[in-house]
């Protein structure tokens, strides 16, 4: 077997203002059943003020990647390799003290479930004020004022009174607004939003997404937006990275990836998703099989057991099984099909089914 374990091609060496760059990131958890390689050779860049959408199914490594950026994994069970550089600073080798300096200050996170991410013990206002007090070294009173200001900004009515409330007194949408206020309180350069609207209702989701977009205009943060919902990504992101089983399989701008996708997995995602304007007579075309276990990931291209296009790949038979396709820089997809094949297959076979 000639499995290529070389890292994926890095995106363009020095992207303009690329202030977060991740190179060949590998994250391995040791579990009772053996090591699980949750992220295997991932590289990407993010520029200030841009939004990178990471889309993938559960277990594709999208959340793991971002917890690693903030150093939130337990080092006892986690092995991290590669390079994460935030504004010239290497994060993988950083000490806990340095990471503490960073978290909540220059890089912040919005979690999926605001009820478990907020502490039930402290008032909402105090939880928002705390990082501000710690990082900006201001008085308790000034931090409280800032918390009230942030709550007003994210649209909590009557913020001075509501800051004294506990999280359980807030509704789901308001809790997520409080989380956003907490994440933005120190005006971070990098905001990681991990499925921030998955737990919310659709009308509230629409409000929160618009709020995030408008706040980004004002704060100018770079956002990494993690979701499994292509619709949300289309709405939010400038660039998209599609992940599958710990690898990035396709990247490009929103228009490129959604209008002219190149990877069979992305085709599968688009084809299996019902839309409000899709044709009702054609059944959905699901991706056969189910995502692989990362304890024993498939050799070569990790998507090959579910891929229906591997017999069209030129070269030696079983190339997809033996050789891992690399992801090039910029607009690219990790697949052995040639660029021409990708284009013709999409236009002739995939696109008509999307109409």
């Amino acid at each position, binding site marked *: 077997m000639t499995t290529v374990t070389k890292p994926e091609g890095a995106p363009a060496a020095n992207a303009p203002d690329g202030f977060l760059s991740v190179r060949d990131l590998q994250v391995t958890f040791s579990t009772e059943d053996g090591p699980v390689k949750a992220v295997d050779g991932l590289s990407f860049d993010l520029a200030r003020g841009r939004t990178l959408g990471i889309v993938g199914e559960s277990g594709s490594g999208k959340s793991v990647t971002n917890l690693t950026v903030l150093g939130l994994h337990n080092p006892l069970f986690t092995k991290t390799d590669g390079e994460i550089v935030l504004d010239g600073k290497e994060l993988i080798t950083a000490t806990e003290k340095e990471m503490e300096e960073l978290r909540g200050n220059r890089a912040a996170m919005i979690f999926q479930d605001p009820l478990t991410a907020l502490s039930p013990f402290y008032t909402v206002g105090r939880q928002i004020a705390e990082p501000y007090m710690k990082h900006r070294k201001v008085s308790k009173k000034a931090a409280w004022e800032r918390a009230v200001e942030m709550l007003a900004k994210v*649209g909590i009515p009557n913020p001075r009174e509501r800051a004294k409330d506990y999280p359980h007194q807030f509704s789901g949408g308001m809790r997520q607004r409080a989380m956003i206020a907490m994440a933005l309180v120190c005006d971070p350069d990098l905001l990681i939003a991990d499925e921030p609207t998955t737990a919310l*209702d659709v009308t509230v*989701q*629409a409000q929160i997404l618009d709020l995030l977009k408008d706040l980004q205009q004002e704060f100018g943060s770079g956002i990494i937006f993690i979701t499994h919902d292509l*619709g949300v990504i289309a709405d939010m992101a400038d660039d998209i990275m599609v992940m599958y089983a710990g690898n990035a399989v396709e990247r490009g701008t929103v228009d490129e990836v959604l209008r002219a996708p190149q990877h069979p997995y992305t085709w599968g995602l688009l084809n299996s*998703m019902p*839309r*409000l304007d899709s044709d009702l007579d054609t059944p959905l075309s699901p991706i056969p099989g189910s995502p692989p276990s990362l304890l024993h990931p498939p050799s070569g291209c990790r998507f090959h057991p579910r891929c229906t296009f591997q017999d069209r790949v030129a070269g030696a038979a079983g190339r997809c099984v033996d050789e891992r396709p690399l992801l090039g820089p910029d607009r690219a997809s990790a697949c052995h099909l040639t660029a021409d094949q990708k284009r013709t297959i999409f236009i002739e076979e995939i696109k008509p089914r999307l109409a």
Partner: protein
Amino acid sequence: MTEDTVLPAQREQVTVGEPLLEVSGLTKYFPVKGGFPIKRTVGHVQAVDGIDLTVRVGESFGLVGESGCGKSTTGRLITRLLEPTSGSIAYRGKDISRATRRQLAPIRSEIQMIFQDPYSSLNPRQTVGKIISGPMEINGITPEGGREKRVRELLEIVGLNPEHFNRFPHEFSGGQRQRIGVARALALEPKLIVADEPVSALDVSIQAQVVNLLQKVQKELGIAFLFIAHDLAVVRHFSQRVAVMYLGKIIEVGDREAIYNRPRHPYTHALLSAVPEVNLTDDGESAGRERIRLAGDVPSPISPPSGCRFRTRCWKAQDKCATEEPPLVRISGNQEGHLTACHFPEEPTTEARDEDIVLDPALVALEEGAGE
């Protein structure tokens, strides 16, 4: 996948189109207890408040709404997993809302349920064979050729390997487990399946597999579905008729085409406009759909607003909406069967308006700030 498996014909033919289940005035109030030391009822959660709906033989009826609107409670009331506070549930013309356990027994086998979470709805200590044959055992049914043969047949229908008869649920993935849930629901050859968010716990690529399976089952076996989901696109794909619920009431009901293309109720408009959509056309800008952003969350069902329950978040609300509850009727301009509960209905289109409707004060402030 065995998508082409030939399905066994139903035992008796039923006429498609006649009403199978008729629900009227169905209400469920959950008491809220409080006080110390003696807990008294201090209020009621008005989970479902007087809804009427009809599911016809062989059709799929979709029920959509946000969390807390009472759609799941409705499903549980219809399967009699919950006792209704008032109202009637007529199954094939016979009221089952007050039927005793004994009276219900024969009907229970005709109304089955598929649950949301394929992890908690299967007993981890039973084999798949035992889980699927459970309903037959309880009802004392032994099909021709024995229960095991029937279980193998069912496994094949839902696209699982019949050899997996002796495995336990933990050996299956989420999508496969949901297939087991479908097989169990099919075991007694039901006439009506209540599917409560059957795909929302699954990954996107797996969702489509299960939706296709349910569609196959619905079409080929002629089983009626009450399909409860919050995902509007999935409901549109699966259901011929759709009802939209808000705070325990049905606010609009009609054919799929009417609800999705010619909605009249402001809430339906807001709901459709909130669905994030992938625009796959090449014509550049996503022109076409209206943008409506409501303010705040759904009010508490313990003390819902008077009159029209949507009025606190509605941009068209007037005094009349607070005092008078709009009836669910066919308003002028609607097709037959398209009912809307609104005093001041919207235009029947989802096209972009001249001006977006943005009610959220934070969004208004930020967008005005950006515009300057």
